[in-house]
């Protein structure tokens, strides 16, 4: 069977993001959705499902993790805690 690999994303309730939960095989999108319903939401885990054929996902390269993400490390001034608050000003 020419099955394709789909990645499954589920929104657990309105107001939250869809979140990756796993993958499955299906011949088309419709079957992928139905399978995802049966495999990943048997206990009311979701109110909405996305399925995406795995080959359409572009991912960053784990070997470049440090090059990509380390530069953010020394930019502490991007966080509010970098700035001391005058005692007189209680909340900001």
């Amino acid at each position: 069977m020419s099955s394709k690999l789909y990645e499954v994303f589920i929104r657990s309730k309105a107001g939250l993001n869809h979140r990756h939960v796993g993958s499955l095989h299906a011949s088309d999108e419709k079957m992928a959705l139905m399978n995802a319903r049966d495999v990943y939401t048997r206990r009311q885990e979701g109110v909405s499902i996305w399925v995406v054929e795995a080959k359409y996902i572009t991912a960053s390269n784990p070997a470049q993790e440090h090059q990509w993400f380390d530069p953010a490390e020394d930019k502490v001034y991007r966080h509010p805690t970098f700035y001391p608050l005058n005692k007189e000003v209680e909340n900001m």
Partner: protein
Amino acid sequence: MYSQGLTDAKGSEEPQELLDAFQKKIDAEIKIEPRDWMPEAYRKTLIRQMSQHAHSEIVGQLPEGNWITRAPTLKRKMILLAKVQDEAGHGLYIYSATETLGVSREQLTTELLTGQAKYSSIFNYPTTSWADIGAIGWLVDGAAIMNQVPLCRASYGPYARSMVRICKEESFHQRQGYEIMTVLARGSEAQKIMAQKALNRFWWPSLMMFGPSDKDSKHSEQSMKWKIKRFSNDDLRQKFIDATVPQAEHLGLTIPDPELKWNDDKQGYDHGEINWDEFMNVIKGHGPCNHQRMQARIKAHEEGAWVRDAVEVYQANQQKIKEEAA
């Protein structure tokens, strides 16, 4: 449910600095994800352990499926159907996680159907009475939980994540099994005997689910180092016994081990010697139901061929319709 033993994977020539960096990550409890570099031996060990685990879930449907049509009430039938459906789901979660290691679903299925891959020895025992369904939930799923809870922290991300889902569902399995046993143990004399006999049949095979004794377990050390395994076989077995004996006492049932005795010094139970010859025999394919289980899997696969073919034709037709419309 769970798989015994681990692969014996040979390490090939791999740069020492990559190996060191990998071990450092593991030691720091940083999870390994699918596209991260990993030693070939780690990959192979995981593929073997995870596929055995997935196969166990799938084959594990058979002994219980045996009682779906004969469940004593509609309620029991619905519960059992839900449980067996869960086992199929567990198989799928783990197959999906295994595929992230670069092995195809077809290959995994073929390995099971040709007998190259193993599954847990426990599923080669028959379910001869309704009480066995209770004993399986209580003991077999109970033993599986003991094994699987530490696997939720396994170093390989997709495996650990699938275990988190599975453990949540497994807890329902164990409780429903214990409830079946409770009803029988508090029932008529005949029902009590039925419950006791089921415990007698499944006690020792459940202890064997934890795999060989530590002194004979050849793969443990490396798996501990890789954090695929967190506790030794004997430690987990001990935990299971200590947790289960009071549950049996509560039911008024007797564990079929005359040597079972509380040991105050180790704050745990001492138990009799496990029949390792029987264990090895079942692993090698000579258990009471090995042949039957494999035949059932092969039959299901072959008889499902038309479904796979139909899907393929449907897909091709849909494609044609789309092209013609364009």
